[in-house]
């Protein structure tokens, strides 16, 4: 009989527990819920941790869902079961903003927090590459202009020397993130499209057929020269170390931490350094954002405090702890502008030029 009563108490206890707990938590949440980009994650988490430490209250929960996944959760509605803040390694899209509006998330505060450089690095054992965006486009696009004509052909280039006689005669082999990654999107937009635009006749297509232009400039070749190496940037660094002939695509903070193993290629003569990304002379860098649901400010405790911590000089300033973690800070005037936006909780108007 003991066994029997044990079963029943255990089972009913567990069920009761689940029933009560899900009720009590759905009603109120005393910690901030943050979702979004895996690129902003390392920075948002530092701020969350410092904020939790200094106030003694609950530390915000930060989930790494990717920029798109974060927007989906963020725009799902108003109410404590939905996220309060989403991070993004690109600006909010027009379609996402409209979805937010449709689901009742009317007031969204946009904050630009800094920049992230994308590097094309190889092992220290081999010479540093000196590339242009045009070289990168010709080496990695699926279709490239045939030599001396205005026609597209499947990418015929096998070695870097084929692309540009000044480059070494090594096989084109680039390890990079898969299409689900924000880093990949940004790499295609900044590096490939940057090189693509160098061809005047392709640039002219943009005016007539935008999607065709995007297809030409953003599609990466699939014949084995570009190898999808997963979302883990540490893994790419390790693989580069094992294969000195390959190049890898990843975020600047990983280069910063592994300077003994890899070095970043010069792009248009500029190497990826903290200074060159901050003054924008390094061409492949992208903006980092976060978005705040204004309706939750005052409902979920601590959002104002978290925002104030994020836009304080000791965090996002030129010598702040985010810079220490590898984020490239904004210039002074932009920091002042977005800092004011945050303090006044100025919502987006919907008239911004979103894509």
């Amino acid at each position, binding site marked *: 009989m003991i066994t029997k009563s044990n*079963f029943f108490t255990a*089972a009913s206890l567990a069920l009761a*527990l689940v029933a009560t707990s899900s009720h009590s938590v759905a009603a109120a949440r005393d910690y901030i819920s943050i979702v979004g980009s895996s690129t902003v994650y390392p920075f948002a988490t530092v701020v969350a*941790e410092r904020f939790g430490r200094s106030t*003694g209250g609950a530390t915000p929960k930060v989930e*790494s869902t990717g920029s798109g996944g974060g927007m989906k959760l963020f725009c799902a509605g108003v109410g404590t079961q939905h996220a309060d803040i989403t991070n993004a390694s690109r600006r909010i899209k027009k379609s996402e903003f409209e979805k937010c509006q449709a689901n009742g998330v009317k007031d969204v505060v946009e904050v630009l927090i800094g920049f992230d450089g994308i590097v094309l690095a190889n092992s220290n054992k081999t010479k540093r590459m000196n590339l242009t965006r045009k070289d990168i486009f010709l080496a990695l696009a699926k279709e490239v202009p045939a030599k001396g004509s205005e026609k597209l052909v499947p990418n015929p280039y096998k070695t870097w020397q084929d692309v540009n006689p000044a480059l070494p005669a090594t096989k084109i082999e680039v390890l990079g993130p898969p299409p689900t990654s924000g880093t990949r999107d940004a790499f295609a937009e900044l590096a490939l499209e940057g090189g693509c635009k160098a061809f005047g006749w392709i640039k002219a297509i943009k005016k007539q057929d935008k999607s065709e232009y995007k297809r030409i400039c953003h599609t990466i070749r699939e014949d084995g020269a570009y190898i999808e190496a997963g979302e883990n*940037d540490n893994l790419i660094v390790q693989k580069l170390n094992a294969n000195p002939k390959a190049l890898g695509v990843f975020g600047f903070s990983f280069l*910063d931490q592994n300077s003994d193993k890899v070095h970043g290629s010069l792009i248009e003569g500029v190497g990826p350094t903290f200074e060159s990304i901050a003054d924008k002379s390094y061409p492949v860098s992208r903006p980092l954002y976060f978005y705040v649901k204004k309706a939750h400010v005052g409902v979920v405790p601590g959002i104002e405090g978290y925002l104030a911590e994020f836009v304080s000089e000791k965090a996002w300033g030129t*010598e702040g702890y985010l810079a220490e973690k590898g984020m490239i800070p904004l210039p002074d005037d932009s920091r002042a502008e977005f800092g004011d936006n945050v303090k006044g909780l100025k919502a987006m108007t919907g008239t911004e030029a979103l894509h």
Partner: protein
Amino acid sequence: MTSHSSDDNKKTASSNTALIEKSLARRYRAEKRFQLYGLMAIAFGLLCVAVLFIDIIGKGHGAFRQTYIELEITYDSDVLGLSDVTDAQQIRLADFPALVKQALRSRHGDVTGRKGKRELNALVSSSAAYELQDRLAANPGLLGSTEKLWLPADDDIDTYFKSLRKSGGAFVGRTSERQQAWLQALQESDEIRLQFNWNFFTSGDSREPEQAGIGGAAMGSLLTLILTFLLSFPVGVAAAVYLEEFAPKNRWTDFIEVNINNLAAVPSIIFGLLGLAILINFFNVPRSIPVIGGLVLTLMTLPTIIISSRAAIKSVPPSIREAAIGIGASPMQVVLQHVLPLAMPGMLTGAIIGMAQALGETAPLLMIGMVAFIVDIPGGFTDPATVLPVQIFLWADSPERAFVEKTSAAIMVLLAFLISMNTVAAVLRKRLERRW
């Protein structure tokens, strides 16, 4: 006739013997080869395990020790900006980092310029200030006094200091030449050393590698597993008892059996998707808490528990049941008083193996928001939590160099848990299982 036949027999017998003798050596060789193949398979398996362990332990053992720097701290109320030491609010706002900076400056007095000061302050972890805060809050009498303390070093310093002992040469990384010179001086005067890293076991996650620990994730795993066990064991056992002892054998029970076996082979991410679609989106269970994790893992472990419980019940011999019925026990009494107690060791073994499986699972938790950065150690079933394998996943993806050894160390801890759970299962089976 008889003699002829016996002669014949002898002849075939001797030719048989010759035949056997001829083939004997070959058959022995085949036997040996056969055994050798098995041995090779085991050796290969052991080699893989050994390589894995050597790699993980080689990378991870460093994380159990942490670099500490000795500093002479003066609790100066002017530096702290503190007038009343018993006021909790004032303690919280007091400038403890300034105490550390002052101590560093008085140790290495020759530093000028902004950059130099930054480099000097970067020697000691930002957690040192919190440590001082806790000390003063616990012991207000310290104000105005001076004491020597071992404070944790920053992760860049920690990585550099540990790499000094390795054969491959020091990893300079993000340390500057000036910092290396300071460390050299500290080393000569024995003011820097490696200590056992208790912090790694007691604290929650952090973005500063020297402050990060697995305490929060281990607690999250424990809470999630308690819930998983409380939900899945009674339900699993009840289902197994009914199916084995009471259910009629017909097409419906066959259908159910096929489905249970099927569920055991479904990829675990599917259970995560189910949790997202039904529990979170429909029943509004909050994300990222042990309750949702426990529910999803329950779905995942139920088939394992049902299957192993049925096997355990089946192994109880029918004679026990018949004897009980013979002296007048009802079917319920037979099950509760005789079959279940005898089958319990087998059922528990199955449950422990199911729990070990659930402990190592990340994929379904990805969908329900348990892959998250959570600093506070969860205190209950409704606090946001993460689990050990997720912590490993998150650290493996972090840019800071010092997280590499943390990742391997966390894997070692997880492996230790898994090994001990499986050992308990094996011991239980050996000790309690009756042979009939």
